């Protein structure tokens, strides 16, 4: 029997079905969500301006190799670790293009990192050298996003505040580049501190 065409037809059917049922159908079912509310009430929060630039830096640097952005509820210890109060759902991601779900957790989940840090300084110090705050962390240093320069006249307001053993020489200061500023702005913008009907936060559930 000449099986040539038979193979093509069979494969075509399999691939078409697989596309229809595992990609197209879920997409048609819940892939056209819109945000709820507008401006400052908008859910999910919009990533705009500097933070949007920072998202590009995040992608470029491959932070995704170690960090996820998805809080699970059914399994794992995400909520116990304080990474979020509720499960992440499809609506949380509608603005993300490309989406930064991640599939490796050498570091923490960053869905709500903006709730854990309030000040840019701490994050700048973390990116400049993660070993300053946590000596055994294996997060890479992103010191190349910072510039060491001579202090001319007055020291810059943006200069990093570093412990003595990490501080630059006298007369020098370390300032973030625009990429570092953007990355920090992006981190600070990451917060899913709103409730969606499809995933109420656990606190609310407890109260009921």
């Amino acid at each position, binding site marked *: 029997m000449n099986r040539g065409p038979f193979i093509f037809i069979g494969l075509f059917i399999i691939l078409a079905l697989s596309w229809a049922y595992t990609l197209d159908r879920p997409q048609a079912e819940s892939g056209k969500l819109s945000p709820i509310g507008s401006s400052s009430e908008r859910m999910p929060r919009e990533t705009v301006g500097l933070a949007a630039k920072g998202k590009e830096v995040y992608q470029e640097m491959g932070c995704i190799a170690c960090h996820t952005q998805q809080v*699970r509820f059914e399994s794992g210890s995400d909520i116990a670790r304080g990474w979020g109060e509720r499960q992440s759902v499809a609506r949380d991601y509608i603005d993300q293009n490309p989406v930064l779900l991640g599939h490796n957790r050498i570091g923490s989940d960053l869905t709500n990192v903006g709730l854990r840090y309030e000040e840019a300084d701490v994050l700048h110090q973390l990116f400049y050298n993660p070993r300053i705050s946590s000596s055994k962390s294996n997060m*890479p240093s992103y010191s190349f996003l910072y510039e060491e320069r001579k202090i001319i006249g007055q020291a810059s307001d943006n200069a990093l505040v570093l412990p003595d053993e990490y501080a630059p020489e006298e007369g020098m200061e370390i300032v973030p580049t625009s990429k570092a500023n953007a990355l920090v702005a992006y981190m600070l913008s990451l917060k899913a501190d709103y409730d969606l009907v499809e995933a109420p936060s656990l606190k609310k559930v407890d109260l009921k």
Partner: protein
Amino acid sequence: MNLISNICSTLCPQLEDGEEARQTERAIDASLRFPTLGLIKGAAVWLVIALAFGIVSFIKLVSPDFMGDSATFTYGKVVPAFWNALVYGFAFNGGLACATWTIGRLTGKATGLNITLVIGIIAWNFSVLFGLGGIFWGDQTPFSLLEFPPYAAYMLLASFALIGFWALKTFNKRIFRSTFAAQWHLVAAVFAFIWILSVAIIMLYCAPVQGVFQGLVAAWYSSNLLGLVLFPMTFAALYYFIPKVFGTPIVGYRYSGIAFWTWMLFTAFSGPAALVNGPVPFWVSSIGVLATFGLLMPTTTLSIQFLSSLLGNFSNIWKTIAGRFLLIGALSFTLYSLLSIYASWRMTNEVIQFSLFDSGLMILGLLGFVGMTLIGGMYYILPRIVNKSLPSNIIDLQFWAQSFGLILMVGSLLYGGYQQGALLNGSSDSSLVTILTVSQSFLFVTILGAVFYLFGAVAFMVSYIWVTLSSRSETEKSAELVKASSDLEYSAS
């Protein structure tokens, strides 16, 4: 009916005189020499490059300040560079080397040097280079096994289309109309790759789907890239080379059809399993998990076919060069497939999700199953297309270095990844840094294993250079070196 037609076509080649058959084979080999050698060379070079990236990335996990000042070689770039160089560089070149040669041989007549094929191969390798450059330049995408920037993805598709066009055209010119298992798998791989890459490009870049569904498309793509493209190419190599190397048919060959169709069917639906508990509709990831369980069926059939064919010839395996690589490849397949089914079981998945266990599985699949099998295939092809014998000392060294390295890497990542995952997902008692110290103790073993495997890869390159550059001995000048191979791919059906 099938059987009868197969028997008919079986009779034709056997009517031919052995000498004449050998003449045809030599003509086919000659017409494929240039592209196949190019692909083998590509596989060897990319394997070394990929492993170098792999080792750098593993070292960075243990000692993050290693090359720490380099923005180009930061961990987040080296990791995707490693996997992509391994897949599109090594595995595709190796797979296509075996594929073009097998398709050519099974077509049964020389088709002449084909310029489309050559251009396709060169373009493919340039696309991989561009893709890697793009990652280091800062254009990577967050989709696993498709981290190459979009422009490189378009280039890959275009160059593969050229190669695929040649493959299908040549397949169509075959002189025996009935087909063999190796051909089904190769044709399927070519067709599936063009399909899945087009879908990924359309749904991720041209008309990107919303948010989390991009993650779904990416999971679908990467699972199918392995299951519908690289693995079928490797199955084809096992189906074709085992009978060739040992002169015995594949045990239970008549179950190949059912194994082929069930494998394709279940694999095509298993992708979403990667997103279990994630923010996608629950039923989609459940389909993925169910389909993964379905893979138990073809896995059993394929494993029995390959392993019993190989073990039936156990005493001869060590006398051949290709045979032992095929054995490690087939063993890795069985282990890989069983472990991935085990890993998608709910209880296990809860432990290992997001841990290094996944990397261990991928290494087993790519360096073990795909890597070792294809290297075996390439070692079967090499002496035939250049009419020289292989440097068996170097290859001995390569074989042991790679096998040992593989065991160290896979063992440490699977065991260590499981420990890591248990601490990570089980409770919130241990901090991330505590978990790191646990993982780092086994990562040393991973690095050691990767160094061994790299050593083997360098030996692979050396033996390739040796074979192509050394001057010919007297026997190598004559046509006697390679004997006509048995027509087993015909009689086995």
